[in-house]
C-alpha cells in the first residue's frame, strides 16, 4: 500500500492506494497553525483499520516552506558572496546579513583571486554575535569550481547549524538565482528539517517504519533525510502534486493542458507526450527568481468562487474572491452560481443564485439563462486566454543553435484534462469554448493526493569536461576526475548517467524505475591560436518527472 498526502490552502487530501485501487481517501480542513497535526492525523485517518506494516511508501506534499517564505516566518541567514568581476553583487542583496567577500573564479573554473581567510572569519564572528545560525556560501561560477565555497565551509561550518552551499542547490549557471536559492534554502532549512523529522517520528509511533518521502516542485520526490539540505526544493509542491495526479490519464502521444480549477484560482500546466514541462531555470518565490526545478505552471485568478460583476458595462470574473458562492451563503455572485442556475451544479440555495444572476441580467438587459451562460463562457475564455499565453511563451523560448531555430519545435496542445472541485461541471463548457477535447479523470477531486502517492524520485546532474585542462567534474556531486585529451562526449554522458543513478539511489529512488534523459549535451573544440587544444563538453541529465511503476505504464 502507498499513501499520498497533499496539504492545500483550504483542504488536505490523503489517498491510500493498493495496486491501482484507491482503498481510502480522506479530505480534511488544513490547520495552517498546526501542520504537523494536519499531516499526521490526515495519514492516520486514511489508514485507520489497516496494517501499518503493509505500507510501503508515504509521500507528503506540504505548504510548510512556501508559507514560511510568503509569510516571512523564515530564519535569519548569514550569506557570504564571493563575486569577482561582473554585475555589482550588492544588487543581489538578500536578507539582513549579506556580505560580499573577496575571491573570484572565472567562467572556465580558474581561480582569479583567492578567498581571504581573515575576512571570512571576521564576517563569521559578526554573524555569531548576532545569533545567526544558518549560513549560505555562494561564489560566482562555483558550479565550475566549488573550491571557494568549500574553503569557506571548512573555515566556518563548525559554528553554524545549517550550511547551504551554492553549487549544491543546482548545476545551472545563474549567480543571482544561486544567491537567492541558497538564501531561501538556509531560511527554511531548520524549519523543514525539524518538521519532517517530527512527521517521521509520529509515523514511527503508529508503526509506519519506512522512510518518509517529500514531494518537490518538479513533481518528483526526495527522501526525508534530504529535507534540510534541499529544503527549498519543497516549495510550491501543491500544483506539482495535481499535475502528477493527472499524468496517468494523459495521452502519451499528445500535447495536453492540465487545469486544476479551485475556488480562487486555476492552475495551468502542460504535458507533452506524458511528461510535464519544467520551468527553464527555476521557480519564482517570495519575489525572487530561484534555481529550484519546478513544473511549468501558471496560476490565474479565475475559480469557482471568483467575484462576478459588471465594470463599465463589461462582465468581469475575478481575479478577486469575495467569499463563497451566493448559493452557499456567500456575499457576491460567482461562476458557481451561474452553474447552479443552469442546473449544471445541483445543490446549494438555487434561489439565492438565481436572484444574483437576475440582478446582473437586468443591468445587462438580458435573460437570466443567457446571463448565466455568459458568465460561465467568460470564465472559460479567461482560462483559455491564459492557456494560450502560456503556450506562446513556451514556444518563444530562446534557442541558441541554427538547428533548433530552423526545426521550430513548437507545441500545439489539443486536449484538456480538468481536475479540482468544479471540474466535472465545467468540462463541457471548456470543451465548447476551446474546441479541444476535454476529459475529467475519475478521481478528479483527489488527483493531487494521488499525484503525491505515485510520483517518482527525481534529480539532475551536470557534468563538465575540459580536456585541454584534463579534467571532468560534477561539482554539485563533489565529483572530480582526470580525463584524457581524446575523451569523447559519449564518455562524459556515461559518467553523467552513472552519477545520476547514484544520486537517485541516495535520494530513495527505485532503481528499476529510473527514466534517465539528457537535457543538454554539447561539445566545443577549444582552439588556441590556430590549433585545437582540447574539447569543452557539457552534459546535463535528469530523472524525468513521472510515475512509479506500475502507474506510469497504462491509463488508469
Amino acid at each position, binding site marked *: 500500500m502507498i499513501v499520498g498526502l497533499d496539504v492545500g490552502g483550504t483542504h488536505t487530501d490523503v489517498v491510500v492506494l493498493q495496486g491501482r485501487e484507491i482503498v481510502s481517501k480522506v479530505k480534511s480542513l488544513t490547520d495552517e497553525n498546526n501542520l504537523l497535526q494536519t499531516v499526521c492525523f490526515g495519514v492516520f485517518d486514511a489508514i485507520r483499520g489497516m496494517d501499518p506494516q503493509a505500507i510501503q511508501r508515504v509521500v507528503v506534499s506540504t505548504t510548510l516552506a512556501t508559507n514560511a517564505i510568503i509569510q516571512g516566518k523564515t530564519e535569519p541567514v548569514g550569506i557570504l558572496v564571493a563575486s*569577482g568581476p561582473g554585475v555589482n*553583487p550588492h544588487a543581489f542583496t538578500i536578507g539582513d546579513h549579506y556580505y560580499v567577500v573577496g575571491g573570484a573564479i572565472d*567562467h572556465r573554473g580558474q581561480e582569479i583571486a583567492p578567498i581571504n581567510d581573515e575576512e571570512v572569519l571576521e564576517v563569521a564572528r559578526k554573524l555569531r554575535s548576532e545569533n545567526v545560525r544558518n549560513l549560505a556560501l555562494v561564489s*560566482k561560477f562555483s558550479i565550475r569550481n566549488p573550491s571557494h565555497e568549500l574553503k569557506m565551509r571548512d573555515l566556518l561550518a563548525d559554528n553554524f547549524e545549517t550550511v547551504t552551499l551554492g553549487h549544491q542547490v543546482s548545476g545551472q549557471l545563474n549567480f543571482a538565482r544561486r544567491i537567492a536559492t541558497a538564501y531561501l534554502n538556509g531560511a527554511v532549512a531548520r524549519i523543514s528539517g525539524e518538521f519532517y523529522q517530527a512527521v517521521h517520528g509520529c509515523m514511527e509511533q503508529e508503526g509506519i517504519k519506512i522512510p518518509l518521502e517529500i514531494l518537490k516542485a518538479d513533481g518528483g520526490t526526495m527522501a526525508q533525510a534530504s529535507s534540510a539540505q534541499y529544503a527549498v526544493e519543497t516549495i510550491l509542491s501543491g500544483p506539482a502534486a495535481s499535475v502528477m495526479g493527472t499524468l496517468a490519464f494523459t495521452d502519451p502521444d499528445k500535447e495536453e493542458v492540465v487545469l486544476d480549477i479551485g475556488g480562487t484560482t486555476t492552475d495551468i500546466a502542460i504535458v507533452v507526450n506524458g511528461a510535464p514541462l519544467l520551468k527553464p531555470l527555476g521557480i519564482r518565490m517570495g519575489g525572487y527568481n530561484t534555481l529550484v526545478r519546478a513544473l511549468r505552471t501558471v496560476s490565474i485568478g479565475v475559480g469557482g468562487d471568483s467575484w462576478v460583476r459588471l465594470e463599465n458595462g463589461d462582465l468581469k470574473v475575478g481575479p478577486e474572491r469575495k467569499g463563497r458562492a451566493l448559493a452557499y451563503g456567500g456575499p457576491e455572485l460567482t461562476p458557481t452560481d451561474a452553474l447552479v442556475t443552469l442546473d449544471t451544479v445541483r445543490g446549494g440555495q438555487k434561489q439565492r443564485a438565481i436572484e444574483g444572476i437576475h440582478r446582473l441580467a437586468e443591468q445587462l438587459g438580458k435573460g437570466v439563462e443567457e446571463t448565466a451562460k455568459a458568465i460561465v463562457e467568460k470564465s472559460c475564455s479567461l482560462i483559455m486566454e491564459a492557456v494560450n499565453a502560456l503556450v506562446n511563451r513556451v514556444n518563444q523560448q530562446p534557442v541558441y543553435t541554427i538547428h533548433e531555430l530552423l526545426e521550430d519545435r513548437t507545441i500545439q496542445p489539443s486536449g484538456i484534462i480538468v481536475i479540482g472541485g468544479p471540474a466535472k461541471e465545467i468540462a463541457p463548457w471548456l470543451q465548447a469554448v476551446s474546441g479541444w477535447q476535454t476529459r475529467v479523470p475519475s478521481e478528479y477531486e483527489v488527483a493531487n493526493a494521488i499525484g503525491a502517492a505515485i510520483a517518482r524520485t527525481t534529480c539532475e546532474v551536470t557534468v563538465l569536461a575540459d580536456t585541454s585542462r584534463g579534467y571532468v567534474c560534477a561539482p554539485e556531486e563533489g565529483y572530480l576526475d582526470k580525463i584524457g585529451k581524446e575523451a569523447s562526449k559519449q564518455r562524459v554522458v556515461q559518467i553523467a548517467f552513472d552519477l545520476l543513478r547514484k544520486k537517485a539511489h541516495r535520494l530513495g529512488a527505485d532503481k528499476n524505475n529510473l527514466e534517465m534523459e539528457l537535457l543538454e549535451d554539447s561539445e*566545443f573544440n577549444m582552439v588556441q591560436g590556430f590549433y585545437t587544444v582540447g574539447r569543452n563538453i557539457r552534459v546535463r541529465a535528469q530523472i524525468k518527472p513521472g510515475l512509479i511503476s506500475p502507474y506510469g505504464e497504462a491509463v488508469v
Partner: protein
Amino acid sequence: MKARRKTGLVFFPAFDWAISETHPEREERLLYTQDQVFEEGILDIEGLVELNPELATARDVERVHFCVPDVEAILTESHYIAAGGCKTVAEAVLEGKVDCGFALVRPPGHHAMRSVHGARGFCNINIEAVMVEHIRHTYGVDRVAIVDTDCHHGDGTQNIYWHDPDTLFISLHQDGRTLYPGSGFASEMGGPNALGTTVNIPLPPMTSKEGFLHVLDRVVLPILEEFKPELIINSAGQDNHYSDPITAMNFCAQGYAKLTEKLQPHIAVLEGGYSIEGALPYVNVGIILALAGIDYSWVQEPNYDPEAIRQSDEVTRAIANTCEHVLEQRQQCGLKREQYLAGKEFVQRSKTVFYDTDNIIEEQKETVRVCRECAGVIKIDSYADTGNHLLGICVPRKACGACQKLGSQWFDEGNVKRYDLVCLQDRVLDQYQVKRK
C-alpha cells in the same frame, strides 16, 4: 535590479556553425560570453528582454546587395539568422517595445559591400545595412547614423553608404596601414553627392581607453549632434581589446561600457572580436549593462592591468592630431564638393576587392550620376575571377525622376551577352529585377 532603459537582446551564438574548424569565426566564439551572461543573471533583470531572432528574407538582402550569382548562393542559414536577429532588435526598438537593443549574433557583416561574390573578412552580407534598409522600408525612418567601433575599418558599410547623404557612417579603427582591410583613411569622406557623411578616424596601434574616449568626445559625438540622426546604430566589434589575437589595440571592457554609455546607440550589433575567453565575456556584459543603464563599475577582465596597457604620450598626440585633421577636412567639405563636381555629370571610381575568406578577386567600376536632387543613380560593373560578370544598377531610395529614369535605361541597355547577370535595385518602387545570360 531594474534597467533604466528597456533593452532588447537577441542572443544567437549559432553553436552549430563555423567558417572552418580552427577559424576564429567558429562555434564556441560566444560560448564563454553565454556562460558569463547566463551566470550574471542578466536575462533575469527587469527591463531586459530576450528576443528570438527571425530569419531575414532574400527580399531584405536584395534591398542592399547584388549577390552573385544569387542570394541563395551567397548565404547560409547563419547569415539569414544574423541579419534576421538585427531586424528583430530593430523592430522591437521601432515599435517602442524597448528603448534600445543589442543583436549579439554571428557571423559579422561590416566588410560586405554592395556587390557580393563571396565572403570577405568573415562577412557575406552586411547585416547592419540589411537591417537599416528594412526599417527604412517598413517604418519610414530617414536619417540614420552608423558608428563602427570594430577594430577593422568597416569598408563594406562605407561602400554601401558612400553615396547616401542620409546615412552618416563613422568608423574608428586601427590604422589601415597596419591592419586588414587597409582602408579607412581620413580623406575617405563619401561620394560626390554625399561628401562629409562618411567619417574615418584611423587610430594608431596601442590606443587605449583614453584615446577612444577622446575620439568619441572630440569627433563622434559633435558630428552626431550636427547630423541629428533619428537612429544611432553601433557596429560593436570587440577586437580593439588588449587581448585580441588579431589586432594591436589596448581597449578594455570598462572602456567599451563607457563608450556605449556615451554613444547611447539605439541598436548595437556585434561585429568582430576574437578573444573569446579573455575579452568577449566581459566586454559583452559591459555593453549590455551600459545600454540598459545599469551599474557596470564591477565589470573587469581577470587580468586587467591598467599600467600595462596605458597609452603612450606619442599615441595620445597622434590621436589628437588625427581628430583635428578629420574635423578640418570636414570643414572644407562644402567647398571641396563644388570644386569636385564642377561641370561633371558622372563620377567614376575603380577598385580591386579581395575576398580573403573565399579567395576571390573582384575588379569593379562604379559610376554615380552627379545629382543635386537625390543620392544619384549608381552603376556597378563588376567582374570576379570566378568568371562571374555583374552589372548592378541602384536607384536610391529617394531618387529624383531623372535618376530613376536613367536607372531603367541602364538596365534595359544591359547586355546579357556581355554580363552574366544584370540587376536593377529600384528602391523607389522597392523592386529587384534580374536579367541573366
